[in-house]
Every structure is written in C-alpha cells, then in structure tokens.
C-alpha cells in the first residue's frame, strides 16, 4: 500500500483522452446526428435595447422545408428564468425564454426557426419581417449605476441589482495625514471565453420510452438537468443530459442557456430530434462574458512600507440578466473578495455594485473576479513601491501573510490557511533571478503578481454568495463487473482538463490497479444521482477526494473477499498492478478470477460476500483549499510600434499534491495564455449605440502561439491542505496571475515616462494614446 500509494499520482501519465481526440475519433455535440433530426436557427436581435412592435412570419413559413417557427407566445408556458440568491438587497431578473417584447442585449434570441437543415433555417430567418422600436442603449457602466429613468429592467426601477459592502477595521481610526496614498481608477475590459468548440445542443427523443436525451457542450450537465426539470416540468427519469467530448469551456459553458431549454422544449413538442450548433458569430455575441469592472481603489501605507488600509468601490457590469444559476454576484463580489490578496492589511473597505446594462449577461470566466482583483492590488503595490522607492519584491515580502500568521482572515472574510505565499514569491524571484533581471532600461520592464485563491471548496462556502446550490460535494461510484473490469463514475464533466486520466491515477493508486485498466465515466446525468459538473477549480480536489474514499472502500472489501478465498488474514494480502497477492507467497488472484468467484461461483463464498462489487462514496471538504502562485513577467516595448512583447515568464505555484505534472503545467500555460489575452488583447467593445465592434475573430483578438512565451513553472508541494487527497485546485490560476504581472511589467517598462497602466487590455493603440497625452502635458 505504501509503495503503491504514489505509484501513479505525481507521474506524467500521458492523457488517455488524447488518442481519440488527436486521431479525430472524439465526438463533440456537433458530431451527433439522429434520423429525422430537425435543425434550429435563431432570429436574434440586431440592436441592444428596444421593443418588438411586430413580427411577420408569413413569408418565412411559406419556405419549403421550414417546419415551424417559435416565438415567445408559443413557449410562454415556460416560466421566466430567475437566478435565485439569499443575498440581501438582491433584485433577481426575469429572463424570458425568447424575447417577449423587450430586447435587452444584442443577439438576444427572438424566434426559433425549425427546418430541414441550418441553411434553410437561415434562409427563413432572412424572410422574417420584424418591426422594432429602438430604445437608448444602456452601455456605460457608471452611467447605468446612476441612471434614474432608463433601466434594463424597468420593473426593478434601478440598474443596480445587488450592492454589498465588506468592511473590517475602522479607517477613521487611522491618521491619514501621515500616510502615503496610492489612489487610482482601474478598468478591466469585457471578455468572452471563446472556447474552440462553440456551444452546441442536440436533443434526441425516444418515442417508445418517452425519454429525452440532451447532448450539450456543457460543463455542468447536473445543473442543466435540474433546470430542465424546474422550467420544462420534465421528470428527472425522463431526461438525461450528456456532455460528450467538450472542446473547452472556461466558464462559458457553466451556465444555463435559453437555447439549451428551447432545443429540449421543441424536441418534446415536435417529438423529433432537434439540433442547434452555435456558429462563431453567435458564440461571440451570446456566450456569457466576463470581467467588465471599474474599480476605484486606494492603498494607504506608512513610509516604511507597511500597508495600513485598502478601500475600494467595485462597479461590476453584469450585462442584461443575472445569470442562472450563479447570479450577478459571482464576478463582482469575487473582485472585492480577493482584492486584499495575500497581504496583511488591517483596514479594509469595499463597496460592490452589480449593474445591469444592455450587453450579454456575464457569467463565470476562468479566474472569476480574481484576474481583476489581482490586477488592481498588484498594481497598487508596484505603484507604492515606486512612490517610496522600494524594491517591489521587498515591499511584498514586508506585507505578505506568513506561514506562522495563518489562519489569517482577510477583510472580505476569506480565511487563508496553509498557504505558502512567501515561499511561492521567493521561489518565483529566484526562478527568474529577479535582482539580475530588474532593469533600468527604457521600454523594458519586469512585473510581479502574487495572489491568494480559494479552490476545491466544500459545502460551507458558496461558489457565488447566497446561491442555493450545493457545489461543495462530489460522489463517486466504483464498480467491478462480472468480468473483473473496473469503472468509476463521477458527476464532473471534463472538458479539456484530462480528468479521465488524473482520476484514473488516483483510483489506480488507492485500489492497486493500473490507471489504463480503469474506465472513468463522467459527464452523464443518468450515471449518477447528483453532480453539478466541472468549474471553479474543484474537480481534482472534490472528485479526487471521492475517488480516494471509494477506492479505499472497494479495496477494503476486496481484501475481505480475498482473505476468505486465500484463507489468510487481510494484512497478509496486497493489491498491486491488478493482482491480489498473498505477501511472501505465490498465491495470486486476478480481478477476473475474483469477479467470477463473487458473481458466478455459487460455492466458494458465503452469501454476505457475494454482494455486487459496487461502492459509493461522497466527499465534501466542507471548507476550501487556499492556494497561491506568483507570476513574474518581463516585457519589451517596441517604441516604433508600441507592440508589447513578453520576453520571460515564470510561475511558482502551489496546487498541493500534483497528480500529473504535465497536465498541471498544461493548465498553467493555457491559463497564462488567457491571462495574456486579458492583459494585452481581448476586449468585447460595445460602442455607445450598443453595437459590437469586435464581432469577428479579426477584431476580437486572442493571443496566438507567437504571443505566448515559454513559461517556466515551479511547483510548491510543502503546504498541503486539509482535504483528503491533499489536492488544491489549479485550473484558473494561470489566468489569475497573468493580468497583474503583465500590467506591472508594462508600467515598469514605461518608468522613464512615469506612466502607470490602469486599464486592461493595454494595446499598442492605447499605449500610444497614453504616451502622446503625457507628452502634451
């Protein structure tokens, strides 16, 4: 056992998923077809704010092979989607399945056309005559929050649908005259997750059993199944939600979408399979977006460089609706929640407003709130370092929460425990040889970002505050069938993380079998009674924990059975490499032999040992695993073009026990690439007329391979959390650290001009404007 315990965990086991995915044998939702299947296309709003005056379907309906067209009235039995929360001062929004009268964002679905194929459906859309009344679009976040007449949801009589204040200490006790103030307004651009596979849904119907199966490119099949029951009134045993191979999610596939419900509702109504595959344009327009915030922040410190107080106002632009199930609280509250980062600051104040606008709803996006929070606090720290002329690494070390000071509760209420903030920071500094690489050269800079993160959270902590949903537990069922083959089933939904591989490694170690002999089943609601899915850096910690518990239970039972068969005490038996062996002897039992004896041989075992080899365990870590990473980037700016080139990039990160170093490194690199996008490239730009200026990938720029540098990654495994597997989440960290590190590096590269970056993404064009404006002054 001791020997086998780390046989697979910690090793670079090649991903089992890759063989099918790289050979073109993967099956994504768009690959799934059924006989007699109809296709849906949506007529979408071409304006951001308005009212429908009339819709004329006559011409469209006449088109050959158009089977039906659905408007709100045809689906009005579906009650509006309301994302509930127990938070005080929260005003939930009502989202109709199709626009009823009011249009609240560009691309909002108005009509669903059902036709023989997508081409014909789109032909029909071009024949629909729609008359609209345009209303003044609510685009600017601050204006929206102050608005007294023009509301996204007139019945709410405000655009601020949630407000909350976090406060610790009393700033009035601090004599501010003796302190140094760093006060800035930061802006984080709106992003879209942009997974390689756009959202897609296919709903099949079995007329014999009257069962529906929704194939969905989702991260959260369990949540979708629950929503279908709630909103369409279909019993849980009549609907299965399957997430087949899913090509990335990044949070964009972690919410409920109207198209998802409509596809099921229409399949049920027309009693025929229905398919909708989002195209890239629809994906850009309508997949939940992320990150749009304005943050007024002030850091007060004394002249020795001790942080005294951090005050902020967070204005979060949540778009047109409070997204289901996460609510509008998710992104902006996390900004405030993590703003203090890993620092000792006695006095903390943050007011957060969640503001509706005529833009698509924001939802979870890799990092949730923290990329903006880290950008703000880490920029403030560097600005403070410049002001008091102190080395930025030293200023961080002066204020960082040390090992012996934990558990430490920060101003927002989050508790840091067992986190190597200082150790990660020092590791990153030595990895890049910080003091050597620090430069006084013009146009060259180095930037640090260090942060705290809460991952793998249990039932005591909500993913989004006040949300009535259990995201804190995971169940695993391990089965050994009559042939002796092993499968383990989970409620997670892997969409690129390689969880089939990593969970096999965990089960393999704890059961004593090779990872490739285990079938991991996931992403299918019919296989498990409850499970939500994969999001919030939870799957390795929670499903990994459940895997350990269930494997131990199975192992123990197998030892009991084997003990009877081999007629030796349990302690004399070992399970390794799929063989059940008696120590110091030749006696061996394979899994097929064991299964034969359990299931088919009616003589060897007493009845109580002949029960099926099915084991179920749930795991709830109750709290979360706090973790950290430090990112350090160096950049060089070309003064001829203002192009920003990232030269070096290091990450020292702490994900607890590393299950598969290659997968962890891949996650970190991918996360950093998305962080580079947030820092240098990506922004969904809605102009004052509510039109999207970045509606294609020629305008919405993401970093390509040449924009992402080699990243040196170092893992810290000295601060293991209290959860069962000692795993911490790490899927989002790459994105969280990159914004701050790059912003600081760019500011450092502009030190000769005294320009500090307060808005991301920072593009060559914006840089040019900043520099020209500075020269004019």
């Amino acid at each position, binding site marked *: 056992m001791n020997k086998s315990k780390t046989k697979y965990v910690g090793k670079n086991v090649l991903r089992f998923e890759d063989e099918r995915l790289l050979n073109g044998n993967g099956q994504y939702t768009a690959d799934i077809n059924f006989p007699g299947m109809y296709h849906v296309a949506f007529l979408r709003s071409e304006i951001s704010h308005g009212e429908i005056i009339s819709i004329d379907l006559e011409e469209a309906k006449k088109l050959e092979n158009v089977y039906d067209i659905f408007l709100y009235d045809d689906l009005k039995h579906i009650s509006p989607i309301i994302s509930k929360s127990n938070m005080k001062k929260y005003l939930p929004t009502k989202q109709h399945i199709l626009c009823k009268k009011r249009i609240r964002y560009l691309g909002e679905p108005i009509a669903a056309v059902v036709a023989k194929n*997508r*081409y014909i459906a*789109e*032909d029909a859309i*071009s024949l629909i005559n729609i008359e609209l009344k345009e209303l003044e679009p609510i685009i600017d976040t601050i204006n929206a929050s102050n608005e007294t007449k023009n509301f996204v949801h007139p019945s709410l009589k405000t655009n601020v649908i949630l407000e909350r204040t976090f406060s610790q200490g009393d700033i009035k006790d601090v004599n501010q005259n003796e302190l140094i103030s760093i006060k800035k307004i930061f802006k984080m651009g709106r992003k879209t997750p942009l997974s390689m596979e756009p959202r897609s849904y296919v709903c099949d119907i079995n007329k014999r059993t009257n069962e529906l199966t929704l194939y969905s490119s989702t991260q959260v099949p369990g949540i979708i199944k629950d929503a279908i029951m709630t909103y369409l009134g279909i019993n849980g045993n009549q609907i299965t939600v399957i997430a087949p191979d899913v090509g990335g999610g990044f949070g964009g596939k972690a919410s409920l979408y109207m198209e998802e419900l409509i596809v099921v509702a229409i399949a049920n109504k027309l009693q025929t399979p229905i398919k909708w595959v989002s*195209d*890239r*344009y*629809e994906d850009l327009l309508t997949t939940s977006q992320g990150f749009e915030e304005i943050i007024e922040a002030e850091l007060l410190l004394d002249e020795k460089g001790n942080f005294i107080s951090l005050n902020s106002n967070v204005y979060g632009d949540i778009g047109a609706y409070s997204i289901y199930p996460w609510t509008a609280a998710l992104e902006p509250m996390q900004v405030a929640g993590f703003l203090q980062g890993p620092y000792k600051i006695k006095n903390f104040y943050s007011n957060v407003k969640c503001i509706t606008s005529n833009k698509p709803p924001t939802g979870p996006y890799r990092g949730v709130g923290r990329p903006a929070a880290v950008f703000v606090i880490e920029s403030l720290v560097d600005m403070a370092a410049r002001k008091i002329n102190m080395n930025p690494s030293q200023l961080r070390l002066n204020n960082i929460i040390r090992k012996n000071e934990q558990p430490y509760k920060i101003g927002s209420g989050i508790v840091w425990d067992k986190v190597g903030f200082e150790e990660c920071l020092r590791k990153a500094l030595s990895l890049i040889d910080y003091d050597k690489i620090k430069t006084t050269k013009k146009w060259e800079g180095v930037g640090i970002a260090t942060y705290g993160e809460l991952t793998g959270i249990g039932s005591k902590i909500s993913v989004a505050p006040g949300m009535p949903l259990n995201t804190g537990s995971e169940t695993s069922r391990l089965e050994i069938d009559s042939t002796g083959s092993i499968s383990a089933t989970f409620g997670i939904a892997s969409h690129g993380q390689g969880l089939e591989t990593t969970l096999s490694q965990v089960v393999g170690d704890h059961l004593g079998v090779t990872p490739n002999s285990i079938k991991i089943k996931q992403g299918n609601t019919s296989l498990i009674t409850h499970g939500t899915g994969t999001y919030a850096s939870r799957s390795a910690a929670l499903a990994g924990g459940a895997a350990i518990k269930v494997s131990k239970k199975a192992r123990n039972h197998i030892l009991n059975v084997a003990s009877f068969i081999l007629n030796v005490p349990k302690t004399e038996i070992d399970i390794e490499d799929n063989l059940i062996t008696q120590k110091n002897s030749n006696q061996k039992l394979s899994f097929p032999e064991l299964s034969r004896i359990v299931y088919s041989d009616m003589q060897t075992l007493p009845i109580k040992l002949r029960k099926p080899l099915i084991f179920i365990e749930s795991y709830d870590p109750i709290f979360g695993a706090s973790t950290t990473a430090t990112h350090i980037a160096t950049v060089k700016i070309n003064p*001829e*073009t*203002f*192009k920003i080139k990232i030269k070096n990039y290091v990450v020292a990160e702490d994900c607890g026990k590393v299950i598969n170093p290659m997968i962890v490194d891949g996650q970190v690199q991918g996360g950093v690439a998305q962080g580079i996008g947030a820092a240098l*490239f990506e922004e969904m*730009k809605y102009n004052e007329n509510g039109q999207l*200026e*970045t509606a294609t990938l*020629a*305008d919405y*720029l993401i*970093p*390509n391979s*040449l*924009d992402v540098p080699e990243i040196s990654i170092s893992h810290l495994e000295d601060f293991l959390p209290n959860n069962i597997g000692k795993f911490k989440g790490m899927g989002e960290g790459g994105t969280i650290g990159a914004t701050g590190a790059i912003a600081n590096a760019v500011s450092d590269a502009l030190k000769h001009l005294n320009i500090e970056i307060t808005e991301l993404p920072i*593009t*060559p*064009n914006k840089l*040019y*404007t900043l520099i*020209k404006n500075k020269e004019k002054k």
Partner: protein
Amino acid sequence: MKPSDFKYFKANSLDRALDILNSEENIKIIAGGQSLVPLMNFRLGQPDILLDINDIKDLNFVSESSSSLEIGSLLTHTNAINSNLIKLFFPIISYALKYVAHQTIRNQGTIGGSIVNADPSSEWPLLISLLNAKINVRNKFKEREILVNDFFDSHFVTNIEDDEIVISVTLPKINKYCWAFEEHSSRKGDFAIVETGVILELEDNCETIKNARIAIGGVDEKIIRLKKIEKKLVGKNIYQDLSIYKKLDLFEAINPVNDNHGSVDYKNYLSDSLLKKVLKKCVNAKVISNVK
C-alpha cells in the same frame, strides 16, 4: 453563418469559364476562396453562381521574358514564395508574401483573388503597385491590359468588368535596385494595420537613385504611392539618410480611419515609423542586378 443558395460550376478551361461569365448574371469567381467564402457565410455576398476556376491550368504559371515576369492569376501565395524566378527578380515578393495570414491560407489564396479583392491592407495589391504591374484581363471577346494605377478604384473595388477574368500580372524587370518591405499587424498573420514597401532603382554607379517607388497600405481606401517623397529621393545618394522626409508629405498623402486596431493618430505615427524603418533598411540592402 451559412451562405444563401447558389449554383456551383467548375470550369476546366478558360474558354468555358468565359462563356459562363458571358451568359450568366450575379456570378462570382472562386479561386482560393479565402476572402469570398467568409463573406458568403455572413451573407454579405450572395452570388447566384459560384464559378470555380481552380482547374484552369493555363492560369497557374510564372514565366520570364526579356523585359518582364508574368505571373498567372491562379498562382498561390505559397507557390509565389517558392518560385525561383520570383526570388531571382523580385525577392521583395517572396519576402512580403510571408506576411500574408497563415500557412494554410497562403496555400489556398491566389494572386488573382488577392488583387481583385482589392483590400488596401493586403500584400499583393501593395506589391503590384510598387512594381508598376500591368494586369491582363479577358472576357469572351477580347483581352485588355490595365495599368496598376488604373486598376484599384477604392476599398474592395477594382475596374474590371463582371464578365472579365484576371489572366495574369506582368511585372516589368528593374535593372539595379534595392528594396525593403515592412508591415505591422496586431498579431503575426493579421491584416496589416500599416504596410509599406520601397524600391530604389539605381544609376550604374549603384549609388545614385534613378527612380524611387514607395507604396503604403492599410491607411487609405487603396494602396497609396507616396509620389512627393519619391520625387525628392531621385538623384540622392543611397548612403545618405533618406528617412529625413517631411512628415507632412506623408500625412497629406494618406487617409487612415479610426477602427478597432488603431486611431488615426496611431496609424499616422505607425506609418511614419515604418516608412523611416523601411527606408533605412532599403539603403542597407543588397543591390539587385539581374537584367542582362
């Protein structure tokens, strides 16, 4: 994002293609399809007929005469980059075409498609402007030659007729010259925000500028030749610093627009930066002398 209904013809000879062009309405020629297909998917282009000319072998060639190089309209960017004749006489083409999008797009896209698409930030339109090309076009009844100056009309508009096909592009050889090309885009492979190319034709002493050509793209509705600056360079010694031109002469000649990739000011700045860079590079470049 699906195209509207269209008919598809594949012509295996030029005569057949010209017949179809002559007899049908609302027809679009497809070669590489790298710009046309996205437009059709957005339904911004809705041709009734798509005429595929990829099988017309007569349009896929590079040939040399004593005074010029002729490039068939179906030559792909990749094949142009790899053509030894092009490398020998106009290495600027091999160099600049590497800036066209990405490898898979360069494998499909053709010179004919690129110039009739007339995107003012594309590389081929800039190259043919710089190289004083003649564009040979033909309809069912006659062939005509269009000087590059008369070829581009504005953004995505050329002066060829609906029933005409671009057959080839003729590039007059240049005796003794040096060249340079520079481009800036948001990312490698993106459309150029600004692109600029220079050719300095030299006297026999290989030092005095006999004739200067400077083209700039991405900053107006078509490729611009900077005539004023060109004229001032004539007679200058290439070992002088040529980048001391009047900024005004540049800014007056171009007319960039505000868009997602840059403001007017930024594009002016970028044009100035790139022009200085390209002139400096050109002066330091090897002199080419291929014409016997």
